[in-house]
């Protein structure tokens, strides 16, 4: 029983992390058609900010967490302003290449200016202890991660449904020009999208760092790859799809870890991606792909 609950918690925690990151990718993609591969470096910026904040002798872990999330938001908004705004209306391939370029530049900056080796951050270890849930022991960190993700998703939904900018962002995913023709500034919509994306990356960064305890220049690579896969599974551009894809990917990953014999342990990812490939064979556009008809626009 305890084993099953723990594995379910594992799946939820993995899924929550992927869902957070996939949402960050999807929200930018849905309005500007850009797959922001520099999203992983935003996470790394958060990680290095934690190192800096801890080194500046901020004993209070809340300051360390706050600094990391703030840095991720600032980094994301800055990238939009500096790198993505000039190519906003260019061909999608241009945006993709820009994202790769930004990602490489940032990774190399971390290598050159900080260190190629992992740097340990211990400030977040306090988040990890064992909780007794009706006789079953689960990790507090996993519980926090799942809860934080649920809260974030609810807040994001409220933002998208209840605020003018939220409405504008949803409308922009179908017809950005018409949103501008309603008088909503394109710059503001893009800035908010990147701000939310950075916020999600910052929150994910806190949990990634709490689990790993160290940051290196390639910190963001693996999580963003997984988030990308989650988006593809859910249907690229669909926000509910990103969440569903994230949790599904987490579940499949944990299922493979549990079910594969020890001798195949190193091939978990191969099996996970194999299953994803089969899924895409059945639903090539992803599970919740936005419908192809785009309003009455021709």
């Amino acid at each position, binding site marked *: 029983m305890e084993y099953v609950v723990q594995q379910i918690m594992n799946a939820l925690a993995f899924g929550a992390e992927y869902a957070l990151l996939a949402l960050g990718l999807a929200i930018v993609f849905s309005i500007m058609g850009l797959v922001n591969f520099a999203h992983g470096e935003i996470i790394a910026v958060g990680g290095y900010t934690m190192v800096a904040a801890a080194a500046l002798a901020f004993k209070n872990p809340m300051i360390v967490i706050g600094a990391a999330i703030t840095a991720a938001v600032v980094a994301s908004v800055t990238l939009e302003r500096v790198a993505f705004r000039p190519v906003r209306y260019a061909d999608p391939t241009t945006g993709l290449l820009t994202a790769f370029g930004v990602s490489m530049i940032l990774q190399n900056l971390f290598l050159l200016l900080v260190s190629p080796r992992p740097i340990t951050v211990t400030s977040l270890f306090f988040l990890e202890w064992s909780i007794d849930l009706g006789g079953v022991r689960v990790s507090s960190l996993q519980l926090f991660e799942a809860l934080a993700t649920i809260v974030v998703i609810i807040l994001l939904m409220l933002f998208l449904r209840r605020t003018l900018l939220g409405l504008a962002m949803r409308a922009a995913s179908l017809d950005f020009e018409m949103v501008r023709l309603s008088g909503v500034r394109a710059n503001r919509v893009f800035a908010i999208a990147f701000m939310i994306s950075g916020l999600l990356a910052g929150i994910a960064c806190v949990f990634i760092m709490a689990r790993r305890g160290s940051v290196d220049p390639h910190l963001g690579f693996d999580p963003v790859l997984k988030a990308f896969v989650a988006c593809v599974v859910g249907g690229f551009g669909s926000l509910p799809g990103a969440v569903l894809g994230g949790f599904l990917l987490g579940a499949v990953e944990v299922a493979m870890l549990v079910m594969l014999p020890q001798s195949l342990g190193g091939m978990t990812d191969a099996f996970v991606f194999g299953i994803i490939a089969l899924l895409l064979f059945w639903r090539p556009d992803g599970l919740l792909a936005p419908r192809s008809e785009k*309003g009455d626009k021709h």
Partner: protein
Amino acid sequence: MLRVRNLRVYHGIIEAVHGINIEVPLGKCVALLGPNGAGKTSTISAITGVVKSEGSVSFEDRNLSSLSVEDRIKAGISVSPEGRRVFANLTVEENLVLGGALKPKCRSDRIAEWFKTFPILGERRAQPAGTLSGGEQQMLAIARALMNEPKILLLDEPSLGLAPKIASQIFEMIKNLKQENITILLVEQNATQALKLSDYAYFLNNGHILAEGKPEELGGREDLMAELTGIT
């Protein structure tokens, strides 16, 4: 007064509009007629700034040519575009809220007003706009365009693709707008209806203004009407 001077619009290397002049005085309804591909929608797009153009567009003696799309909307221009382009994934009510992005004051009162004018929209307020019929979407598109309380409304092919009965409802609606002294630039292929509504009309073909004048003058010219219908 909206004043378009020597307007040239390019699609890539092709010039779609070859230096036209148009004036829309305040409180008047001016029709822009012409067959498919005449450059009507290009002209509208150039006025709102969504396509690049040469020449000048001024509104109330203010030159708009260097302004962004958003700033032109803020200056008091609004458009109900060709093909309606309602936000299909937003509800009817959300479409109106977003349409009134620049005028948050009393926005819900104005929405309630529209629901009184078009009870069908009120009934479907919580439905995604994509589920509305063509005529309902057109009503919504016009209502949305008026939510920012513009000084001039650009109406691009409001009757396109609608059944004749629905189209006449839309023209009835435009007539009401006219009575409220809203300035309108009406782009239409349905010349008969448009001429009935307008105070002045331009006839556009192949990117040139072929003729302009009072509706009764243009309506009597069989050569123009033949251009529209393609019957020569």
